[in-house]
């Protein structure tokens, strides 16, 4: 635990140093990156050291004699800490070249400060062992990420996105704290260890309250509304950290509370599983329909949170039905997907940031052909896209395989659990196919083909630290795919201290990791052999270049290429009842038609629902109550007196 405190101090120092050094921007950035990296490496060492210990490490500190801060490092925390400690230094490295505007030195320094604060807060969230510590860390995390989103604070769009995020995160926190309140009231203690003593009804109410609260942080459908607004507004390294790491804290919260409640109610399991399936399928369908890269990536995060929820939900179903193997595979798959998604989603956000940084265009349909001008970004983005589509030999497949494994175990169950397991398999298959469709679209439209606008010609690869960060993550994605054994064991080790899973036999894994590794390597070997064969076949053969075959049409321009919108049109329309599209198109009339326009808008059903069911009624009632606000201060004082009198009478 002491090592982790040292790590936290280093990370925080990495946040304070730029504030002091902001006059010398490069020095500030170097200090930030090196201190954060040093802190995170120390943290990783601390996690590694704690890994070998069989009992959780505890720490507690009493503050003002009323609030006790207690922290503990158990196996679930050690499963969530590595994504934080691994990603933070890489993202900090990326931000070195990304935040290069000299005129914004102070702003950059402040951004670095909140970045460090967010990293520290996330570490504290995973370590917290009582409600007070958790609540403090949770709020620190929410507020520091709010400040990070506000980097570009002059832009009205950013302000709106940040406020929306603040609203969601604070409402979510309110519900989480309400759940804590219920539990604390019935057990009379703020300690996490006492939670399992709460009565059944309090547990159920607390779980669902917290599920909404944590779910809105994780961005699970339909509580995801803030995500697609906040991510495009935030700078890309912030999106990478928030989408890659921070939203997983919502998953952590749900898992932590679920195991603390120690109540394996099938209702909890089924709710989480259904939420996961809805979120996974709809997340990727909405992602397909989006035109901005970062917005698409935000929806894809919703999809991946769905996959993680499916894994955890299957694990919970396994626990509630007594199938421990299914439980172990489900939770382990979910935990590994947390790490995997952190890697490839950060990578993809960095790629999107590189494009924004050098080309400046957000819409995919304005780009094209970037693979030639931005080779590093293009190649790493391609690797990330294959990984996020869950295809072998990359890391996304490994965690999805574990989740599939759990779901197939669930087919032996009876009744609704069987049906849900079956639905989970179909949902995973659909998500896999749609995600591949979604990311072939991004890669194909943005990086391949011909540039659709002039400015895409001028693109170049971004600065060396950005390229290095992206390459590191791409290599990590492939590395986990080719050497999955230690990572699968790491995910299973994350379940070690969870009492209900203690009975899982040690050899449950069997040869699974080994088989996955062998196949991935055989495939790569075969691919290399075929590549060599191809090279041999082409030796001495005439190879020439020409334009693309235009099917007889010789005057092709780059504008006749398929666009992202046309690529995804039929898939999106197929999901019609769950996705609302409005098309504006004046049909061609007369023999020589004039200029015409086509526009298509996809609206988020959850956003429409929120507006219709919550925002509009609230505004209506508020409008009716306008007479209360009349500007007479004496009457306001009267309200206060009346309220206090009323409270005194009632309470």
């Amino acid at each position: 635990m002491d090592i982790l405190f040292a790590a936290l101090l280093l990370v925080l120092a990495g946040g304070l140093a730029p504030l002091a050094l902001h006059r010398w921007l490069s020095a500030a950035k170097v200090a930030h990156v090196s201190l954060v990296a040093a802190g995170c490496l120390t943290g990783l060492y601390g996690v590694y050291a704690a890994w070998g210990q069989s009992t959780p490490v505890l720490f507690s500190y009493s503050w003002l004699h009323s609030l006790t801060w207690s922290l503990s490092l158990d196996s679930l925390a050690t499963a969530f800490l590595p994504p934080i400690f691994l990603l933070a230094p890489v993202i900090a490295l990326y931000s070195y070249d990304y935040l290069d505007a000299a005129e914004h030195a102070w702003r950059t320094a402040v951004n670095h400060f909140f970045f460090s604060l967010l990293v520290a807060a996330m570490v504290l969230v995973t370590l917290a062992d009582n409600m007070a510590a958790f609540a403090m860390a949770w709020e620190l995390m929410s507020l520091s990420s709010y400040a990070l989103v506000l980097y570009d604070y002059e832009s009205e769009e950013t302000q709106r996105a940040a406020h929306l995020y603040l609203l969601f995160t604070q409402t979510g926190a309110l519900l989480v704290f309400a759940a804590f309140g219920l539990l604390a009231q019935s057990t009379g203690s703020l300690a996490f260890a006492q939670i399992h003593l709460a009565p059944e009804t309090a547990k159920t109410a607390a779980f669902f309250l917290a599920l909404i609260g944590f779910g809105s942080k994780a961005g699970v459908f339909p509580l995801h509304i803030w995500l697609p607004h906040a991510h495009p507004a935030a700078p890309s390294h912030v999106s990478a950290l928030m989408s890659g790491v921070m939203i997983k804290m919502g998953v952590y919260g749900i898992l932590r509370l679920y195991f603390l409640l120690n109540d394996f109610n099938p209702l909890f399991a089924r709710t989480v599983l259904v939420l996961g399936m809805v979120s996974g399928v709809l997340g990727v369908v909405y992602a397909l329909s989006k035109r901005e890269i970062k917005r698409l990536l935000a929806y894809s995060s919703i999809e991946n949170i769905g996959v993680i929820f499916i894994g955890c939900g299957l694990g919970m179903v396994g626990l509630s039905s007594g199938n421990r193997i299914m439980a172990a595979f489900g939770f382990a798959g979910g935990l590994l997907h947390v790490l995997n998604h952190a890697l490839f989603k950060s990578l993809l956000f960095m790629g999107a940031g590189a494009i924004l940084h050098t080309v400046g265009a957000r819409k995919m349909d304005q780009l094209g052909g970037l693979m030639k001008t931005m080779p590093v970004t293009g190649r790493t983005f391609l690797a990330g896209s294959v990984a996020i589509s869950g295809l072998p030999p990359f890391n996304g497949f490994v965690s999805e395989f574990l989740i599939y494994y759990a779901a197939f175990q669930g087919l032996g169950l009876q009744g609704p659990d069987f049906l849900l397991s079956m639905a989970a398999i179909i949902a995973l298959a659909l998500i896999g196919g749609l995600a591949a469709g979604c990311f072939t679209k991004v890669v194909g439209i943005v990086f391949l083909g011909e540039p659709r606008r002039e400015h895409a010609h001028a693109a170049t690869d971004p600065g060396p630290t950005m390229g290095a960060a992206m390459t590191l993550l791409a290599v990590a994605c492939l590395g986990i795919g080719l050497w999955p054994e230690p990572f699968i064991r790491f995910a299973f080790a994350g379940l070690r201290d969870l009492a209900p899973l203690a009975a899982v036999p040690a050899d449950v894994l069997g040869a699974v990791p080994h088989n996955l590794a062998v196949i991935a390597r055989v495939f790569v070997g075969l691919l290399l052999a075929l590549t060599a064969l191809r090279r041999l076949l082409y030796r001495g053969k005439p190879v020439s270049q020409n334009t693309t075959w235009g099917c007889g049409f010789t005057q092709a321009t780059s504008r006749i290429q398929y666009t992202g919108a046309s690529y995804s049109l039929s898939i999106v329309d197929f999901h019609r009842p769950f996705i609302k599209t409005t098309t504006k198109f004046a049909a061609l009339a007369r023999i020589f038609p004039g200029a015409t326009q086509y526009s298509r808008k996809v609206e988020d059903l959850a956003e429409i629902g929120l507006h219709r069911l919550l925002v509009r009624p609230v505004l209506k009632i508020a409008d009716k109550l306008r007479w209360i606000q009349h500007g007479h201060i004496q009457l306001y004082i009267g309200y206060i007196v009346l309220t206090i009198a009323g409270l005194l009478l009632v309470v």
Partner: protein
Amino acid sequence: MESVVSFGLALLLAPLFPGVILKTKALFAGKQGPPLLIKYFTLIKLLRKGSVYSSSTTFVFRLGPLISCAAAIMALLFFPFAGTAPLIAFHGDVIMVFYLLGLGRFFTIVAALDTASPFEGMGAAREAFFSTLAEAAIFVVLILFFRMNGALSLAAYFSGSQPISIIGSQGALLLLVIVALFMILLTENSRVPVDDPATHLELTMIHEVMILDHSGPDLALIELGAFYKLFFYASFIACLIKPPPLADPVANTLLFYGVIMLLYMVVGVVESIMARLKMDLVPKYILTAFALVFFAVILTLEIV
């Protein structure tokens, strides 16, 4: 050793069978048709040529044929041809197989988008859409098979104490599965009524239009990958309808390839007597296959 021989035999013979389809179609049209070995001749012809690359393309375009061919070969590695144990088998390998085929598709699609051709983009979009639906249907088949004998491996489906076969106790269910799998075979391998490999109009194609710009050895790799993929699906169905294994391995192998020949002939017959569907009917067609298998799964709720 036996496994290596049967795998090698499959690799060698797979290009023969598409010739059977052409022969069947020629028979229906009252023509003599190309020789049975036409696909081998095509491959040799392509391998002898050089290539012309579009100036729009990048390395992704060259990667497409390699990965799609490698993925198809990988799928064959797991398959127990004629009942011989495959080279690799483990619990869960079917998931791996279909995801590897998905990887091949991913790169075929991006290679098509790399050419900047609107036609290839059109084909790519269709491929992405239809294959997603087909994949969901395939996973329902896997669910059904898991319900029937608890296996999650191609080798284990067709061996052990309770092999999945039409003559087994649950053969009636398999009738539905065979029809559905045949429909998926036609979808995934771009045959009529989903796609027409022989059409002359690029606008109406799916798979053929995606590979318009490939030439020479690259095209040969794609063709080879397509043969293997079709052979994989055909073997899958052949294992379901094959009579019980004979004692003599040679006779057994002959029987297996006989069934496969029959299947390819059926594909040829379908192509001769059916027109291709309108594009917007294809999702319904695939969902019919999905519904058939789903219905079979629901029936197992009573049987097991």
